[in-house]
């Protein structure tokens, strides 16, 4: 059995391939309870893939993911569900089922066969805590993308997971909605009971929120350490280039070359 509470998750030597194409190569890092670990890296680095592997939604080619003294990648299929129930993964665009936001928050609790009266109470508390009162009875199509992300986060937390994984929790939503989500994550960290792991391609956000940072680049884990290690004392040349923005410049240049244009034409056509 997987332990439902653990203080650390450790990823070791993780490989993943889409068909033949490698998306994760020898990825290793760890994340601890009461801290926010940001996985940073440009688009296509492998952040989403990494999270799917940890949540057993994608099968690693090799490697280990240790939690509570067990390698969760080696769990028999029957226990994969127990592992998923002890953690929560909020996808970049959370999918809300075609029912009210309130009913959506109840879904993970119903799947855990929690008594009806208890579900109602937990859901109501979450609605208040996450400021979802105005949209609680609305169906997903009437909810903005920022509200959807907030509802997705609330739905992930009603089960009090030991590990919360968030894929780009504030990408593509407005500053106010992003601010709210950042506040919830800070509050959750302050409570100290959860391992928080999030991806972001926003370096400013990583600086604001993270305690620990892991840089993924083209499927490889380039460097992991405390926020200060990564941003102020990078040991790796790629890390240094990424945190001061040079890699983004290189990516833009590569994309322009791929389009057969000089960067200047891109700028002038704006």
């Amino acid at each position, binding site marked *: 059995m997987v332990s439902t509470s653990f203080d650390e998750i450790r990823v070791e030597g993780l490989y993943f391939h889409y068909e033949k194409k490698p998306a994760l190569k020898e990825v290793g890092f760890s994340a601890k309870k009461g801290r926010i670990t940001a996985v940073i890296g440009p688009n296509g680095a492998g952040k989403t893939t990494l999270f799917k592997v940890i*949540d057993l*939604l994608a099968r690693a080619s090799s490697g280990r993911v240790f939690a509570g003294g067990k390698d969760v990648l080696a769990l028999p299929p029957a226990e994969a*569900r127990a592992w*998923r129930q002890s953690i929560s993964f909020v*996808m970049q665009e959370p*999918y809300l*089922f*075609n029912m009210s936001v309130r009913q959506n928050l109840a879904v993970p609790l119903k799947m855990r066969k929690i008594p009806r009266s208890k579900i109602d109470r937990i859901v109501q508390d979450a609605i208040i805590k996450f400021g979802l009162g105005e949209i609680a009875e609305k169906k997903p*199509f009437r909810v903005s993308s920022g509200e959807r992300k907030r509802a997705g986060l609330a739905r992930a937390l009603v089960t009090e997971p030991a590990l919360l994984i968030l894929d780009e929790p504030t990408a593509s939503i407005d500053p106010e909605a992003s601010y709210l989500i950042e506040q919830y994550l800070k509050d959750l960290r302050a409570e100290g009971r959860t391992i928080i792991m999030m991806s972001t391609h926003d370096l400013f956000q990583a600086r604001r929120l993270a305690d620990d940072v892991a840089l993924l680049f083209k499927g490889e884990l380039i460097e992991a350490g405390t926020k200060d290690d990564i941003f102020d004392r990078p040991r790796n040349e790629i890390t240094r280039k990424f945190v001061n923005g040079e890699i983004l410049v290189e990516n833009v240049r590569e994309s322009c070359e791929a389009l057969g244009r000089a960067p200047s034409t891109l700028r002038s056509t704006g």
Partner: protein
Amino acid sequence: MGWQSDMTSVLGFSIIVSATATAIAAAVAIPLGIFMGMREFKGKAVIVNLFNSFMGFPPVVMGVLIYLLLSKAGPLGFLGLLYTPTAIIIAQCFLCIPIIAGITISSITNHSKKIIETTLALGGSRTDVYENVFSENLVPILSGVMVGFGQNLSEVGASMIVGGNISFFTQTITTAIVTFTGQGRAMDALLLGTVLIVTAFFIMFALTILQLRARRS
């Protein structure tokens, strides 16, 4: 009495036969469509295309095929089903399966990945996954069922050939229209035609409402 009871019995018979055929087809086609829609496999595109082309399968041809199957000399001739309501149900069932399965597969192929991943990520079981994929695609699936029912109700070729258009036994709305027209009872034919159109209208109306309510994001 007279034509009035004729008409109501023909209408009732048609609805019962077509609804039964649709229900049996749905019981086969929906699980099949969900199962295939949720999986990626080689040749899936071919199968989807096959279903799509069978959606427009001419009822008359289906009638002939089922006739060959059920006629005295045919492989299932010993069952003695030709010219019975059961024969019509069988033919309409086969006409309907590709419609329901095709619509179910394409809807689920497009809308199941996120549902599956979300359900598993929230701690759901395999049963939860199937349930959610079904309920989140309920509207397109029901649309498929209603389109199938509409087609069954309005087809004439298959029920004529395998049912035989026997009064008070296998006569449907559409085959009755053919008979009435032939007998010079044009007004009766027109009346039945109107009933058919009104029924079809209600089906389309219900469909539209369903689709409006289902608007996603």
